[in-house]
């Protein structure tokens, strides 16, 4: 017991020593400039593009185009056609059942298919699912990126990761054009787990050929609503 305690103390003191030594070396190298820090940060030039196009339809078309480039499937529909569009996307992929987070809007789900709610399901059972259907929190047209913050409607991280197929519902209001606009949509949610998804999983490690799908979902479809 004595040995354990002194081992713990030794580890603690090593930690304190290492921390102090590193911080001291940094101060020795660059000095202490704390007084001017915030003013200097505010003066960083940010001349890059923050906002994007004014016309929503142009932004939606850009998003669809970029998603196509990544080999994702894209379906466009009106606000009252989500149900039947989900049905046709599933039929095209030959899916009869998709896992879903329990708080996904039920009126998105067509009859005749099954959508088990799986909030706490063990990984190996998620692995046996045919795929998953979720919403998202925002989408960036310029880069074809969908943002999940793993809260209401987009499920915990494992859910959109383990299955081989992800069907994502993106509402027109959630779509912005630029990357800065996309990150601005995360205001107040910065400390939630966040995943950005740009197309299906891919690798270029074999002779720089882009191969769709390694560990994440190999197939991504997006229903773009509005």
């Amino acid at each position: 017991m004595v040995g354990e305690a002194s081992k713990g103390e030794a580890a603690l003191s090593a930690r304190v020593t290492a921390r102090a030594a590193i911080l001291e070396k940094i101060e020795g190298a660059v000095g202490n400039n704390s007084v001017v820090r915030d003013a200097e940060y505010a003066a960083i030039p940010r001349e890059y593009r923050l906002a994007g196009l004014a016309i929503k339809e142009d932004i939606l078309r850009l998003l669809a185009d970029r998603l196509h480039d990544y080999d994702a499937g894209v379906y466009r529909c009106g606000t009252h056609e989500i149900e039947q569009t989900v049905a046709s996307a599933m039929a095209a992929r030959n899916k009869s059942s998709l896992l879903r987070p329990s708080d996904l809007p039920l009126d998105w789900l067509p009859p005749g298919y099954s959508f088990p709610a799986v909030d706490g399901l063990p990984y190996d059972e998620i692995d046996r699912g045919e795929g998953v259907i979720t919403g998202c929190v925002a989408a960036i047209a310029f880069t074809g990126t969908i943002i999940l913050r793993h809260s209401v409607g987009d499920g915990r991280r494992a859910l959109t990761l383990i299955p081989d197929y992800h069907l994502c519902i993106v509402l027109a209001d959630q779509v912005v054009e630029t990357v800065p606009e996309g990150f601005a949509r995360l205001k107040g949610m910065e400390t939630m787990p966040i995943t950005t998804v740009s197309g299906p999983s891919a690798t270029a490690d074999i002779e720089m050929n882009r191969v769709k799908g390694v560990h994440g979902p190999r197939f991504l479809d997006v229903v773009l609503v509005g």
Partner: protein
Amino acid sequence: MSVRVGEAAGAPTFPVAAKHLMRNDQLRRNVRNATGIIRNKRARVVGEMADWQQLRDAGHAIKEHTLRHLGDYLVRFEENCTRAGGAVHWARDADEANAIAIGIIQAKNEKEVIKVKTMTTDEIGMNKALEAAGITPYETDLADLIVQLGEDKPSHIVVPALHRNKMEIRELFMRTMGLAELGTRPEDIAEAARVYLREKFLRVPIAISGANFAVAETGSICVVESEGNGRMCVSLPRVLISVVGIEKIIPKFEDLEVFLQLLSRSATGERMNPYNSIWTGVAAGDGPEEFHVILLDNGRTKVLADSVSRETLDCIRCGACLNACPVYRQTGGHAYGSIYAGPIGAILTPQLQSMEHSQTLPYASSLCGACYEVCPVKINIPEILIHLRNKLVESGDVPAGERLGMKAAAWVLSDAANLSTARALGKLAQMPFTNNGTIHHLPGMMAGWTATRDMPAIPPESFRQWWARRQREKRP
């Protein structure tokens, strides 16, 4: 306190390694082909950005600002990460960092870990340390898996197995995974990796990651990747350990909007890489229950102390300078004797570890400036290369031959009479080696100069002689 960069301290010098590797035609073909493809993709997606230069300026300014206030931002990161349920450790060098990680794993009585591509753990030789402690690390990035199964060394920052072609990889997988059959398409090889690793993702309870960015304001870590192995590692296991170089800190969450745009286009030529994971401490009901960050110095504070070469630490590890470099494109990454290859490696490796181990690296460049032009955070690599060469000269670590040559040159060029004498002697001395006004092979110590190039012979008449003759002849 010993600073190591992988096994770079024991590696042969650049000219020795490069000469050997240049004879490997297959390797050179693979490297040339792969770097050519990424260069073209990068050029295309950078070309469509109207604000690329403004993003570079912002990226550079944020990094320089952070380094000036690094202590403040590290402490702020520690506070916020801890508040969110993370444990923050500090490590002065490789041994301390490895010991902390091993301590965490042993406290859980675990014998296996899954790893997502991290240069930083390669830098500190973590896999070897884990194995010595009886822990098996599984690399999960496809290229890292190829390197690990082949008992090979990474040769590129972003695509570590770029020196291997498809058929080599296929043969390696069949042998090491015990597969009787495997298709020849890249898809078949990727599928084999998917099957091989899936079982490990779902079973192994501890993961080790690096970080592309660590946000001081929120205590968040960001990992950038393509395959989904990163998402698997950071969100499935019960325990996650992230090894983070202290220069990976950025001040605020919104700064990610700059770096994520710069990184994906520069690294793989994509508008955005398939996945970015950003997480803060632990989240109830989602992902690891226990999260550790190891903040690593390992020579970085020493780099910070040199105000000229400090900006080496701006690097976001995109690899664009490797693909652009005419030297790297010929030799590949292994010649640099370090996991950090190419132009960035030529300035980072000699600064991180003591110069005596890598003093040829600052010379592994023609100073053409292509690296500076493509660098997304505007690191002036040519200037730093010259700065490091200067430091080497001042420290007296210059080869004796070069020092002698420079002394002789100083004497010859300091006086017109000396120059004229040297010319006359040179004209006599070159006679046996000259053919049609060209020298193909110089003898002795000077043979190195003509080993790969011809040299014009000293002409029969010098400019001064010609001028004097002209003046004489003009006179009536």
